């Protein structure tokens, strides 16, 4: 068969990609504090330990507040930018979009330190609010990428028809455009949520004493006996993000199908 070699290679590659994640549940249920083979027995004690850890629960609360705020803010910024670039031609478009998309390649630590020095200089105190500022910045380019494909597949004549039939630009947006791009918006909300929930460096620099979940996890890495608990937590997080992403992917595809576009695949 044609491409047999490629197929074998692709499967090996997928194994490499999934190997670390596959190990998570294995050691999350393993009855030993040492993470190595052979396995010693089945236990759920690491999961039950999670619920008794108050600093973990607090970190989860902080992370959820941040992630929800970021997903809403970044998606709003994404909608403005995607609508502007797909619908209008204007001066400095490339330059401005280049700047907005820059966080995609700018190392996070640079964003983190530059925000930190400015905030410190202004005398602002660090909290989850400052984390929201930073996370919104890095999540926005991803929301724009998703929303661009949603807005791009819009037919301009639908809009013109609505205006001709007497709708105002505002009601056209609400009645025609918004329903058509809604799947893209949901997908963008979920992606921004996942990015924020997972981000460590900016959160570490800007959270002050209000640790988010990744900051908490990073702190636990110093204690070898905490490793199985982290494995249990990781298992839950991986299941959660896979669920979120599957929903996001479903809506992204539905959105493209709804607007009559062709699926070009992928989030990025």
């Amino acid at each position, binding site marked *: 068969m044609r491409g047999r070699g490629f197929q074998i290679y692709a499967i090996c590659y997928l194994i490499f990609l999934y190997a670390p994640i596959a190990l998570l549940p294995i050691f999350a249920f393993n009855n030993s504090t040492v993470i190595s083979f052979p396995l010693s027995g089945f236990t759920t004690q690491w999961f039950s330990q999670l619920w008794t850890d108050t600093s973990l629960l607090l970190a989860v609360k902080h992370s959820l507040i941040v992630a929800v705020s970021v997903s809403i803010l970044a998606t709003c910024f*994404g909608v403005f930018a995607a609508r502007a670039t797909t619908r*209008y031609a*204007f001066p400095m478009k490339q330059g401005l979009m280049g700047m907005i998309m820059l966080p995609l390649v700018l190392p996070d630590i640079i964003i983190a*330190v530059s925000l930190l020095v400015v905030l410190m200089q202004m005398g602002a105190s660090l909290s989850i609010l400052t984390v929201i500022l930073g996370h919104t910045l890095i999540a926005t380019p991803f929301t724009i990428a998703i929303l661009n494909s949603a807005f791009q597949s819009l037919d301009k004549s639908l809009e013109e028809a609505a205006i001709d039939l007497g709708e105002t630009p505002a009601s056209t947006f609400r009645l025609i455009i918004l329903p058509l791009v809604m799947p893209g918006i949901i997908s963008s909300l979920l992606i921004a949520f996942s990015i924020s929930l*997972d981000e460590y460096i900016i959160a570490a620099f800007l959270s002050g004493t209000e640790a988010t979940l990744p900051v908490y996890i990073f702190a636990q890495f110093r204690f070898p006996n905490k490793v199985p608990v982290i494995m249990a937590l990781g298992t839950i997080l991986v299941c959660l993000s896979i669920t979120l992403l599957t929903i996001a992917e479903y809506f992204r595809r539905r959105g493209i199908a709804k607007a009559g576009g062709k699926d070009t695949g992928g989030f990025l």
Partner: protein
Amino acid sequence: MKRRSFLRSEAGHGLLMLSPTALYATIVMAAPLVAVFVFSFMTPGYLKVVWTFTLNNYAKVFSSPIYTALLGRSLLTSGVVTAVTVLTAFPIAYFISFYVSPARKSLWLFLITIPFWTSYLIRVFLWKVILGYNGVINSAFLGLGIIHEPMTFLLYNMNSVVITLAHSYAPFAILPIFVALEKIDRSLLEAGQDLGESRFMTFIRVTLPLAMSGVVASVLIVFIPTAGDYVTPTLVGGANGQMIANVIQLQYFKLGDYPMGSAVSITAMAVVTAVALIFVFLNRRFLRGPK
């Protein structure tokens, strides 16, 4: 009157609509970056900045062997990571674009992006668990009798940093190449073979040049962020795997030396940008687009 008509024009609408996002990026990213640039020329004071101009910070960055060595190692590491990631990613992108049926392409891309979105910290930490002295590989190999002593070259050096980063950035490398391959007109390849080129030569002379824009994009999107990565060198790098981000973190957090940290950040960004630009320049032949 004139201003009003501009705001009602297409261009005005577009600019107005983009302005919230552009303004946010300016205030939260561009302005702080300018501030860091200014700080890098100021005199250090603990947790604050003394407002007198100096070039001392940069003199220190370039004269002290620590900074230049770390910068060199960061560039080397992310160069190796980029080469490994892009070279291993290309066949995958090629496979999905040319061999997978159109209906299943999305599924493959989804499978490839999933690991990328799942807890970055835990994924990096798992490599530590896999590669460690008592880790998965060593304990499995010992148990199978393949080795008699745990291998120590796996963790806490550049190897482990390269493996971990190559794993983290795989989808970033695959997607741009895939997009470029998808755009190639398949009839060009048939024409190449009809005119007597072998499959391999068609790939070298037709497919590869047309895919280069994607390859360049994936090189940049892997090289630039990995050069500034903090988590991976911290967790799996050990003493010999530290990179420039570690010293930036040290200056700001542990030493409270903002001007020095800023000077290191600016230098690192400038060097990485310069390397990236040289790379783009060398590839400009492929990036001009169709005539």
